[in-house]
Each structure stands twice: as structure tokens, then as C-alpha cells.
């Protein structure tokens, strides 16, 4: 049993290392080659765990090989447009100027139900609201709505920007620990933080989460006792 236990831990560490080197994105944003690699790695890792007659190296070597090839392929894709086209494909336009390209949908084996589902996940419930819909190489649908259907923006209402950077809240205390980088981002000093906490009757270790922006507007969530 120890053998299986330690093999599992070692392979887990190896997979984490491989994913870190590959620089994985979220599952929904994987390119086809990355998706294949992810599935292969997960299947290969189970072989030495399930069968203790298989040497650990017989799991580690394929995982590392796939990781290396993934890095090589992604570097190639970065440098070569042709390689990008061959390996990842091109985005395809499904709706152009409000008109559904039915031939393209057939080519992509994209059904009407698939299209409507993807539109709903983009918060579009009326197909008439869509000006352009593009299927990305990851299979995700990107939607550009008609002007009339778009959400109102401050620009449309001629509102002045307060400065986006100033209002971005960052966590200055996370689970009792002060985050020095966030304090520096907000251009605030630790003395200010301690003063604020004292005024509210807290110590840093009492705080579950404290957020703050560059205008020194803060919000405190204390830890539950």
C-alpha cells in the first residue's frame, strides 16, 4: 500500500511541475493540442499507480516527453503563422452582420441548439441582438452585439472616469496576513493600515479579508470567532 501511496504523491508532484512548465490555461480555453496533452497525461499517470509492476519511470518519461513536446509546439505556434493555422485552426464567423452562415455551421458540425446555448452563456437570449458571432479555436463562441442591444457604457452617457486604477480594490490583508505588495499598489504605508485597524478595534490576525483601493477606501471582513 505504501508503494501506491508514494507513487501517487510523486506522480502528482510531477504533473503539477509539468503543468507549471507548460503554463496551462483554464480548461475552457485550451487549444486542441493542449487538450489532447492534458487528457493523455492524466491517463498515463494512472498506469504506474494502478499497476505496481510498471516502473515509475514508465509513467514519468511519457509525461515529461508530452510536456516537452507541448512546449515545443506552443513555441512553434507562437513563431509561425502557418503552424498556428495547421495546429490550432482559425476562428470561424458563424453570424456575420446579423445573418447566420448556415454552411459554416454545417462545416463546424454546430447545431442550432449548440448556437443558442453558446449565445445564452454569453447572456444573449435573442439571436436578433447579434451582429457577429465567432467560434474561436478553443470552441468558445465570442459575440459582438448590435449597438441597440449592447449594455450602456459610461462613455455613452458622457460620464467622467474617476480613474480605473484608483478604484481597483486589492486585498491588503488575506486570512490574517498583511499583503505588502497590495499596500504598495495602493500607495499606502503599514502605519496607515495599523491606524485603521486600531480605529476599528482589530489586529491584522483578526481579519479574514481587507480590501482597499488607491483612494484609501477600504472594506473589512473580520474572522468568525
Amino acid at each position: 500500500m505504501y508503494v501506491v501511496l508514494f507513487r501517487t504523491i510523486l506522480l502528482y508532484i510531477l504533473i503539477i511541475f509539468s503543468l507549471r512548465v507548460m503554463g496551462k490555461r483554464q480548461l475552457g480555453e485550451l487549444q486542441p493540442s493542449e487538450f489532447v496533452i492534458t487528457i493523455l497525461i492524466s491517463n498515463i499517470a494512472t498506469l504506474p499507480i494502478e499497476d505496481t509492476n510498471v516502473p515509475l519511470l514508465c509513467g514519468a518519461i511519457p509525461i515529461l516527453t508530452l510536456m516537452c513536446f507541448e512546449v515545443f509546439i506552443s513555441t512553434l505556434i507562437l513563431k509561425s503563422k502557418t503552424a498556428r493555422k495547421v495546429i490550432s485552426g482559425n476562428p470561424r464567423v458563424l453570424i456575420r452582420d446579423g445573418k447566420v452562415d448556415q454552411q459554416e455551421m454545417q462545416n463546424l458540425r454546430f447545431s442550432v441548439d449548440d448556437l443558442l446555448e453558446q449565445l445564452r452563456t454569453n447572456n444573449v437570449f435573442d439571436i436578433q441582438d447579434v451582429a457577429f458571432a465567432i467560434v474561436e479555436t478553443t470552441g468558445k463562441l465570442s459575440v459582438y452585439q448590435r449597438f441597440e442591444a449592447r449594455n450602456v457604457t459610461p462613455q455613452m452617457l458622457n460620464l467622467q472616469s474617476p480613474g480605473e486604477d484608483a478604484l481597483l480594490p486589492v486585498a491588503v490583508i488575506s486570512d490574517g496576513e498583511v499583503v505588502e505588495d497590495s499596500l504598495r499598489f495602493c500607495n499606502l504605508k503599514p502605519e496607515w493600515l495599523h491606524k485603521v485597524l486600531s480605529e476599528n478595534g482589530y489586529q491584522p490576525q483578526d481579519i479574514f479579508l481587507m480590501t482597499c483601493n488607491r483612494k484609501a477606501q477600504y472594506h473589512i471582513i473580520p474572522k468568525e470567532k
Partner: protein
Amino acid sequence: MKRFVIAVVIMAAMLGSSGVVLYGLTQVKDEMIASLDELTQMVEDKEYDRAHELSEQLFHRWDEEENRLIRYVRHTDLDSISSRMARLPYLVKYKDPAEFLSEVSQIRYLILHLWESELPLMRNIL
């Protein structure tokens, strides 16, 4: 670029170490086959005492090599050879040449098969 370099280094290390492992396996194969041939000759010449001593040495030698091979060869393949190797000293001691030669032939075949299956040949890859 850093990831690319890391990947190249890892790939080169794996290719290099695979070559070293194959070289080591070839050495083991050659040594074992030579010893088995010598053992066979001794038994055919009815030199049972020397053959018994050599068979024991061979078994211990294989035991040492197995501890190294076990890192990259399927354990069941190694176990098959080990279980047959363990019989050899007693087959020689109790003078059973027919059974002994049969076992030696099997061990020979298994060791050669073990080595051949690690070669980067098309029939192994496909």
C-alpha cells in the same frame, strides 16, 4: 523562452539517460548470456561442482543487476527470469541436466527478449 530551454534540457536529459540505460542493459545481457553459455558447457562436460558454484555466482550477480533494472523494466519480466535463475543451482546440485538445460534455454530467451524489447526499433515502436 525560459520554458523552451527547460523543455530542451529535459528532453536532452531523457534521450541521454535512455542511451545510458540501453548501454547498461546491453552489458548485462552480454554478461549473463556469456555466463549461461559457460554454465551450459560445464554441465555438458559433467563438471557439476564448478557448474554449481558458477550457477550460484550467476544468481547473486543477477540479483544485484535486478535491483538496478527494476527501475525501468517491467517487474513481471524480471520476476520470470529471477524465479528460473533461483532453480539453477539446485538443478545442477542434484544432477538434472535435461531440466537444467531447459531452464537455461528459457532464461537465455527471456534475457534476449528483455533486451530486444528495449531497442528503439520500428517493430517495438509500432
